[in-house]
């Protein structure tokens, strides 16, 4: 069984079909032989009887006139029929006048040997008057053997034909199986290549020729022509990635070009590989992100402990500095006491901010009107803006549906961004400072876009990649935790934060959060 199991599909199919044909043909032959043997025997018996009747009729006159030489001729004729053992010709008196065994001449019918033989009698008459009788004894076993011998004569050449049919069917099936199985073999090679080449280079596992020479337009609008008809179809397929899985499987052009079921399977596999490539890339991205977050978490945890200790120490230092400042008569010492106290407070503020940042945030999601959250956040800083002569503009989309968010956290995000904008405008010393906040609902994507834009100093190009990293700051008294906190909160909402800035001109933060998925699967 194991040996059969290990045979190739080509051999299995060829052998199975050959054996099937053999069984069908041999079965048919045996069935025919079995059914026709009896019929043939009956036909032979009938034929024998007809011959005896005809011969007897043609010699009737000779029997009537006792022409014994002719009667003997009749006997010899009948005797020459295969399987006839004895022949007796009787005259009208019942006396044997012709016999294949001369010892019976002159005797009567009673003396005939009937042992193991079949008997056929034919009565001769003239105008219903009996004139004689012909009695034939024949061996049924001989007759059967004769029929079987004739059947064998047919079966032997038939066996050669059956053999030839089986050989032809074996070769034919082997050929057809080879054609059918080849795409599967190629697919299997592709799968092996997939593991050999590794997931880093999935393209190597795909090798196919363009399905047709004519270019066929991609009806889904993903590419110009269907990747199956392109020379560099693999690159196009990998460019499409996951889209190919979603769109190509329903595409008529793809169905038309991808051939039969097995070829479709191969192409589906290629699509799956391209999709896998897409997912691997996303997974790698997520993995890098997770690593960063893990690192950040570890650092944060450790830093929080240190910060906590520093805070305690700072409390003692600031108290001591205060005492020195109030009780010392030396002006310089009082001045230093003041500096120590102020710096201790500053360090304390930083430490508190850091501790807040490193805390594990557990959002409490509720359906909120995001526009109201924006307005509340802005109202907190409205006076600051007025103090610095900064104009605040709101452009809110009235069609935004209730969104699942943590309103306090989202408020913190907006406050952080607006504070950054105020500082950026102040740094630029802009006379017409403007902060513009917009909200927009992308109905088709079920997402909400919030932008916070200012015409402040902007971000230097080399700093753009660092602004979301903790403790990075360009401000003299900054903690470097504001934007990382923004990033952290938006991440918890399942959204993204992007920044667009031209140093000396403007900065624009764009937040994108999902309406339905907000706060879930984070």
């Amino acid at each position, binding site marked *: 069984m194991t040996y059969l199991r290990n045979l190739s599909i080509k051999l299995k199919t060829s052998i199975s079909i050959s054996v099937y044909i053999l069984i069908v043909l041999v079965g048919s032959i045996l069935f025919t032989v079995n059914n026709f043997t009896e019929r043939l025997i009956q036909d032979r018996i009938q034929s024998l009887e007809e011959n005896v009747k005809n011969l007897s009729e043609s010699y009737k006159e000779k029997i009537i006139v006792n*022409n*014994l*030489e002719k*009667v*003997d001729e009749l006997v010899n004729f009948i005797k020459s029929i295969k399987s006839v053992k004895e022949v007796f010709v009787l005259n009208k008196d019942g006396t044997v*006048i012709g016999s294949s065994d001369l010892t019976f*001449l*002159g005797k009567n019918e009673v003396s005939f040997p009937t042992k193991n033989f079949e008997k056929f009698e034919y009565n001769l008459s003239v105008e219903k008057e009996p004139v004689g009788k012909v009695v034939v004894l024949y061996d049924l076993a001989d007759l059967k053997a004769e029929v079987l011998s004739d059947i064998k004569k047919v079966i032997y050449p038939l066996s050669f034909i059956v053999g030839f049919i089986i050989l032809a069917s074996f070769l034919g099936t082997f050929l057809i199986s080879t054609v059918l199985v080849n795409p599967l073999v190629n697919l299997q090679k592709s799968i092996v290549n997939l593991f050999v080449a590794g997931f880093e280079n999935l393209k190597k596992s795909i090798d196919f020729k363009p399905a047709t020479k004519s270019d066929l337009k991609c009806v889904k609008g993903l590419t110009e022509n269907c990747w199956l008809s392109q020379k560099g179809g693999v690159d196009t397929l990998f460019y499409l990635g996951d889209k190919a899985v979603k769109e190509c499987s329903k595409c008529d052009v793809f169905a038309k070009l991808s051939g039969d079921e097995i070829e479709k399977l191969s192409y589906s596999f290629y699509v799956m590989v391209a999709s896998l490539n897409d997912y691997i890339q996303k997974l790698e991205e997520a993995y890098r992100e997770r690593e960063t977050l893990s690192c950040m978490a570890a650092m944060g945890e450790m830093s929080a402990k240190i910060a906590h200790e520093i805070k305690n120490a700072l409390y003692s230092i600031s108290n001591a500095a205060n005492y020195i400042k109030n009780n010392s008569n030396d002006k310089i010492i009082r001045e230093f006491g003041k500096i120590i106290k102020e710096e201790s407070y500053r360090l304390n503020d930083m430490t508190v901010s850091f501790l807040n940042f490193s805390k594990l945030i557990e959002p409490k999601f509720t359906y909120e009107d995001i526009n109201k959250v924006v307005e509340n956040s802005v109202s907190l800083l409205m006076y600051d803006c007025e103090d610095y002569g900064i104009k605040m503009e709101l452009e809110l989309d009235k069609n935004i549906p209730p969104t699942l968010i943590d309103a306090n956290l989202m408020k913190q995000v907006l406050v952080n961004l607006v504070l950054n904008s105020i500082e950026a405008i102040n740094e630029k010393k802009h006379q017409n400072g403007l902060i513009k906040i917009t909200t927009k609902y992308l109905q088709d994507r079920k997402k909400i876009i919030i932008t916070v834009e200012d015409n402040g100093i902007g971000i230097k190009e080399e700093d753009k990649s660092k602004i979301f990293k903790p403790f990075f700051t360009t401000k003299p008294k900054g903690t470097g935790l504001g934007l990382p906190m923004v990033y952290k909160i938006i991440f918890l909402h399942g959204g993204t934060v992007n920044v667009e800035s031209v140093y000396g001109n403007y900065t624009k933060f764009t937040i994108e959060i999902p309406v339905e998925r907000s706060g879930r699967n984070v």
Partner: protein
Amino acid sequence: MLRKILILLLTFAYISFGQDLKIAVLSYGEPIKEYKRYSAFADYLSQKLNRKVDLIIVEDVDKVFQLFKTNEVQMAVGCSVVYFELKRQYNVEAIAVMKINGKAVENGVLVVKKDSDINSIQDVKGKKITLGSPICMSNCVMPLYMLANAGITQHDVINIWSSGTDKGAILAVMSGIADVAGVKEESIKNYQQHLKVIARSPSFPRHIIMVSKNLDPKLYKQIENAIFSIDSETLKSMEIDGFAKPQPNMFEIIKNYRKILELFPVVR
């Protein structure tokens, strides 16, 4: 001129090839076999005599007589009785006697069933007799000759008839249709276990080659020479051993055959 040359050529051809010869062969029941046998003989003679020799197979003895009467045939093959009649009526002479199994003569026999109570020719009285032929020497004249010599005539038997052939006569005896059969001795060879011989006739010539004495004596002599110089291949085809010169004493027994037949008028 051309016509004269043509006439000369035809004349020369006629002289060269001579008159056609025809041989009548009296059939004894196997015409195809007999045709094959005597065709070889006719071909041989044609070659030797440098003339066409045709063969006519005849079933009825009267037809043979008729052919000689109308000069349609010049030669014949038949039994002693036929020869005797042809000699008497149409000036035919026996030129050779065929030898079979080394013998130029044969015998007729009277046979009965092996288990028959007929043991001698005297027991035939009051019985049914069948003959192999209605006229031939071996299976008609000789059986009747033996009966006549035993003092038995037609009146002494229940019935006497011809079965047409020796085989028919033998089977009639074996079937009980007849009690006695008069046949050629050689015919009982295959039935010896079923039959017993109760009388055997004197010897007489076998098949005789007869030639009309009306033929050119030179041609007659040529025929005789050809027959006695026949090659072994032709003899093999004719299924005979050779030929013997007919001797006058061979035919002594036939002289009175007509008287014998008169004792059995039903046979004629």
